[in-house]
């Protein structure tokens, strides 16, 4: 067992898969220039030493090309892992992801596979509105993409390895405050969920959530940073006699509805916590789906705690207000218990 940060765990996943399959390669801006950063959050740092600059391919600042090249390479026998420095720049490559990557298999009548991975850091970190967005809700809305969001080092490695072996485009949302990036690239106010990662190989299947904390009264579904905020909230609530069960879905497409249903059969109350802005965030879909298939298990409204519907403001006091805090989650839970 090694203790790894998420950045390290992702790096190890890439390294192992690149060793196993010579068709796997990485591309993106500044991913491993000699003397550089190893990507904005150090995930690919040092990989070019082992694999060379051909397989750890630093690109021009050309997001359309990065995504399109990943599609073309994937369609013709390669397995690209593409990096977008900040998730916000996904919008620049949206056409290639939505119109090409997601549709090629279908449009070809099933003849073509597109085994590509698109890695995107998300989350608000006082960089202002164009470097802060959580974009899951946009991508869960594109049929043909799989969407994953690891929140621990163990999951990061196991899920990324599964993503690399998947024959379909997979978008990986990684949270800036969870990487545990070190040195120059360390983030203020970051958590550092260093975790145990087995030495032997393992894969984590898509569509299997995990219960991060067991509880009786309320089910919380949360991803990425919000898992940790919810855990904090659960501590607060515990003291007030409210017992919270926390589910981390780990993958949004496919989504583990069974696990949520099992939980609300017990708790009959559901809160979804997301950093995505509220209107049509990924949580909207979960709420809608549960309002359809889980309606009779519920005793109370389905509550969403999400970032408010605003661009992310720069000032920390405002940013902290916009993004769900443990206190806000706890308040929502208390209110829900009364309703």
């Amino acid at each position, binding site marked *: 067992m090694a203790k790894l940060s998420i950045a390290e765990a992702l790096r190890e996943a890439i390294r192992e898969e690149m060793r196993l399959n010579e068709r796997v390669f990485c591309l993106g801006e500044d991913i491993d220039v000699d003397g550089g950063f190893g990507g904005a959050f150090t995930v690919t740092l040092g990989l070019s030493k082992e694999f060379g600059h051909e397989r750890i391919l630093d690109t021009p600042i*050309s997001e359309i*090309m990065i995504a399109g090249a990943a*599609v*073309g390479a994937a369609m013709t026998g390669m397995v690209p892992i593409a990096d977008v420095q900040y998730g916000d720049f996904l919008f620049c490559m949206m056409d290639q992801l939505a119109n090409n990557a997601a549709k090629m298999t279908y449009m*070809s*009548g099933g003849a073509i596979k597109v085994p590509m991975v698109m890695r995107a850091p998300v989350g608000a970190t006082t960089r202002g509105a164009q470097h802060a967005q959580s974009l899951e809700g946009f991508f869960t809305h594109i049929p043909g993409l799989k969407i994953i969001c690891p929140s621990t080092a163990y999951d990061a490695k196991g899920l990324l390895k599964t993503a690399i072996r998947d*024959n379909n485009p997979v978008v990986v949302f990684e949270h800036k405050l969870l990487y545990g990036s070190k040195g120059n690239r360390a983030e203020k106010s970051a958590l550092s969920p260093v975790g145990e990662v087995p030495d032997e190989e393992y894969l984590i299947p898509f569509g299997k959530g995990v219960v991060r904390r067991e509880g009786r009264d309320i089910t919380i579904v949360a991803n990425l940073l919000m898992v940790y905020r919810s855990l904090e909230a659960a501590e607060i609530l515990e003291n007030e006699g409210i017992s919270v069960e926390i589910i981390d879905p780990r993958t949004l497409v496919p989504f583990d509805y069974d696990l949520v249903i099992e939980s609300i059969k017990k708790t009959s109350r559901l809160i979804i916590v997301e950093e995505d802005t509220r209107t049509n965030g990924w949580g909207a879909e979960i709420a809608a789906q549960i309002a359809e298939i889980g309606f009779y298990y519920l005793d109370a409204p389905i509550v969403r705690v999400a970032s408010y519907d605003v661009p992310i403001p720069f000032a920390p006091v405002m940013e902290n207000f916009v993004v769900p805090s443990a206190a806000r989650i706890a308040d929502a839970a208390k209110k829900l218990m009364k309703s």
Partner: protein
Amino acid sequence: MKATKEKILSMYKQMFLIRNYEDKIYFMFLEGIMPGTIHQCQGQEACAVGMLFDLSKDDYMTSTHRPAGHCLAKGVSLDSMMAEMFAKSTGCCKGKGGAMHTGDISVGALPAIAITAGGMPVAVGVGLSCKMRKTDNVVVCFLGDGASNEGAFHESMNAASIWNLPVIFVCENNLYGASTHITQVIKIENIADRAAGYGMPGEVVDGNDVLKVNDAATRAIVRARNGEGPTFLELKTYRRRGHSRNDSCGYRDKGEEKEWLEKDPLTICKNYILKNNLGTVEEIDSLEKEVLKSIEAAVEYAKSSPSPAPEEALNNVFY
């Protein structure tokens, strides 16, 4: 360059096939027996055939919203293309793609990409793949004149150039992007001149003369196979019909139209064959008949093929 008899006749036959495939579809559209929409390539046959004739099925091609000529020249089966037009399950995309996404990866024809210039970054990826897998395969990437103003054009040209990829960008400049004349949207004379901004060779070619196209193709292919990098070819050509179904081309200058319609690539090729004694009128006649029969057969095949089951729509979202 001199073409052998066999090659020139074969190229002519392909061009004749493309022309008559498109015309047949045009008339079936008018009859109303075909779903969807069409963007046809009559007049641009020499571009497709000249560029693709010498490729193997391990070489790749990316196409556009106007893919029929490219696909036929790349070797997608006539029957499967016709069946796709009829939205049948025997279609090259099983009825899921349609006209604008025609293709068959088994012969190196990627499903056409109908987003203007959207195939260019994909072609960069295919080029990367050919290079990284250490093959000597190449990819021919078709685009229109209008596509040369898309951001995707720029990013793709640059990347192919800096990485020395085996990509041949083929811009069929038919003077129009939909209803918009190229002179309204670009200030320079030749789109090929843009290649210089990427350190890539660019060349203007008569796109209605299949031999000239093939000659330029040959040079670009050799360059690409030898790892010397990409080439940009601008083929000056014209579409003989509208941009899409039901377009009477009210935006075109009649003088321009007349001038260009006289430069029919099929006639130019046929005349060359006859003048150089590379084939007789009878030989040409007979191969034309053969082609027309194959088209009729394809229509029969398509019509008699089964439609997909409605629920089939739910399959193939993931591989």
